[in-house]
């Protein structure tokens, strides 16, 4: 059994899925930091999946519509997730309490927090060595990830079904010197797992029937534009 302390102990870093490594400075979620993922979506869940699969505990706050099955397909262990769908008006206190105990708090802020409040929660994350993942905007975040382009594949006009989504994720860091990084991902891939798209984009994924025939050129165009 893994405990809080032996998750990459000493490195101050929580692991992420291999596909996301090159997007984050240091190749993981650095403890005590704040990371944003744009509005709540699969990217928010995928950001925490690597760490939770590795034994970290995650609290999801303010997301009543969390798709747990998608999270599980992305690698999240549901036994290590606690949900607080509605944290109420005292949500900053709730988040601060959770940061002391959980390795990751995935928060969709119910209202726009003031700069003072943001600093308080950032300080709490630093003090307890936790990671605050924000589904939304957070001016002081160390890293910002965003889905820049996305295209669902496998579905046609009246046939097929949603099979996979090719997405370009762009990461920007704090400070002017940091150059934006971008990666093409299957977000999600055919079985729900998230993988880097470089190898898969050649068309091995979307197989069988008319869906492949119509969508493959489309995807090739998408991939080459990135």
């Amino acid at each position, binding site marked *: 059994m893994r405990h809080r302390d032996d998750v990459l102990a000493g490195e101050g870093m929580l692991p992420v899925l291999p596909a996301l490594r090159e997007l984050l400075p240091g190749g993981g979620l650095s403890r005590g930091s704040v990371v944003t993922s744009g509005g709540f979506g699969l990217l928010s869940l995928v950001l925490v999946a690597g760490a939770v699969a590795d034994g970290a505990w995650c609290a999801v706050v303010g997301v009543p519509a969390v798709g747990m099955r998608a999270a599980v397909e992305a690698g999240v262990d549901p*036994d290590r*997730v606690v*949900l607080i769908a509605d944290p109420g008006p005292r949500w900053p206190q709730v988040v601060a309490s959770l940061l*002391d105990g959980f390795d990751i708090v995935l928060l969709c802020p119910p209202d726009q927090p003031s700069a003072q409040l943001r600093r308080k929660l950032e300080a709490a994350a630093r003090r307890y060595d936790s990671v605050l993942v924000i589904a939304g905007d957070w001016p002081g975040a160390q890293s910002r990830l965003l889905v820049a382009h996305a295209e669902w594949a496998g579905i046609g*006009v009246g046939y097929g079904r949603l099979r996979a989504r090719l997405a370009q994720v762009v990461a920007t860091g704090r400070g002017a010197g940091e150059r934006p990084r971008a990666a093409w991902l299957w977000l999600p*891939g055919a079985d729900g797992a998230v993988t880097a798209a470089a190898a898969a984009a050649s068309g091995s994924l979307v197989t069988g029937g008319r869906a492949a025939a119509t969508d493959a050129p489309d995807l090739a165009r998408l991939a080459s534009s990135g």
Partner: protein
Amino acid sequence: MTRQAGARVLVLRCPDLLAEDAARAFEPVVAVVEEFCPHVEVLRPGVCAIPARGPARYFGGEVELASRLAAAVSLGGFGGQVGIADGLFAAGLAARTGPAGLVVPPGKTPEFLAGFPVGVLGIPELTALLPRLGIETLGQLAELPPADAVSRFGPSGELAVRLARGLDPRPLIPRPPPADLSAAMEFDPPAGQSEPVIFAAKALADQMHDRLAAGGYGCVRVRVEVHYSGGAQVSRLWRHDGLLSALAVAERVRWQLDGRPGGQAATGDDAEVGGVTLLRLIPDQLVRATGRQLALWGDAVVTDRVARAAIRVQAMLGHDRVTRPVLAGGRRPAEQVLFVPFGDSEVPQRPADRPWPGQIPAPAPAVVYPVPRSASVTDSVGEVVSVGGRAGLSAAPALLAVEGGPACPVTAWAGPWPVTQRWWDPPRSCRQARFQLRTDDGRAWLAVLQEGHWVIEASYD
């Protein structure tokens, strides 16, 4: 060892309240049963037992007692099955027989039991073995000489034969009214600070544990009641399972005081709330103390730090608002996850590892709306798209508008996939046609058409 038939026992079973988390809803039912006979034993949530002899004499017969009890329970809005037989085991089976349960006349219990398969014994090591030896019913098992059963099957064999013959292995253990086991302290003048209250809580918890231990009970949960001089009263249930020390109970009292209405801990000068005037600890859901150490958490080992943080937030928001996701089976995305309050355990009624034909295959949507959002799906001339009796589509979907928002062009779509759920149960059955829609803003949706209305059940980001 006594060879007599078990005493007459009445078992009440509420099929709607069998889930673990229904224990709280079951309490009022137990209160109703207590009016018939104060010696109630709660066997598990949704099932309780009383000795039948006394009340039956009072109400003029067992059949009369059963119908009166069922009527009293149904007044509370729950369906109840009542079974009466010799011994707890047979009475439990009688309660499950037929929609309203069954009264087995005195002395007829062995005949009643004879037809049941051995599986009902609930002794796993025997119920697999006995049918292979040609013993398939309790009647056949009852014919075995007890001595042979012991030598062949061990102690569980003896138990099985006794049960099959309608001899009960143990008497009823009625629960005393919980009030007798509670511990309370008044504060005069009202305690403005939390510290003296928490200090008193430790002593009260010791008292409560002593009283429980003296009666041979454990409690599943402990209710902490705090009265304030401003008139407010805050009452919370905390998971106990016999695992909390007095200090741990006191810590929960502290959390509860921290999360009290209107503010921070330990100030007490809040004019509206006032100081604490009374603290009471009441054991909830008494069970026989079996020395069992329950795992608080299934398989994953919850670290103290995680549990403390989660319970702390429960103190602020309420027990039910901090949940753990449990995967369940189902066709709709919202059915596939149950949210179980932190600290409670629940086995999903619909296991996830069964095939659910009609389930949308992976990948699953990342956003699943707890309440489906209304939507409108129209074709190229602005007519709402509809589905005919044989899953024929009126026209191709062209525009999607979610909750009155701006209409988005649909770039690709798939469906309809008809789903008829629970056709065997008319009030709960439903016929739906499901679609996946891709819109030109890069998003994709799981849309459902039911009785002419479009809703969005989930979004693929």
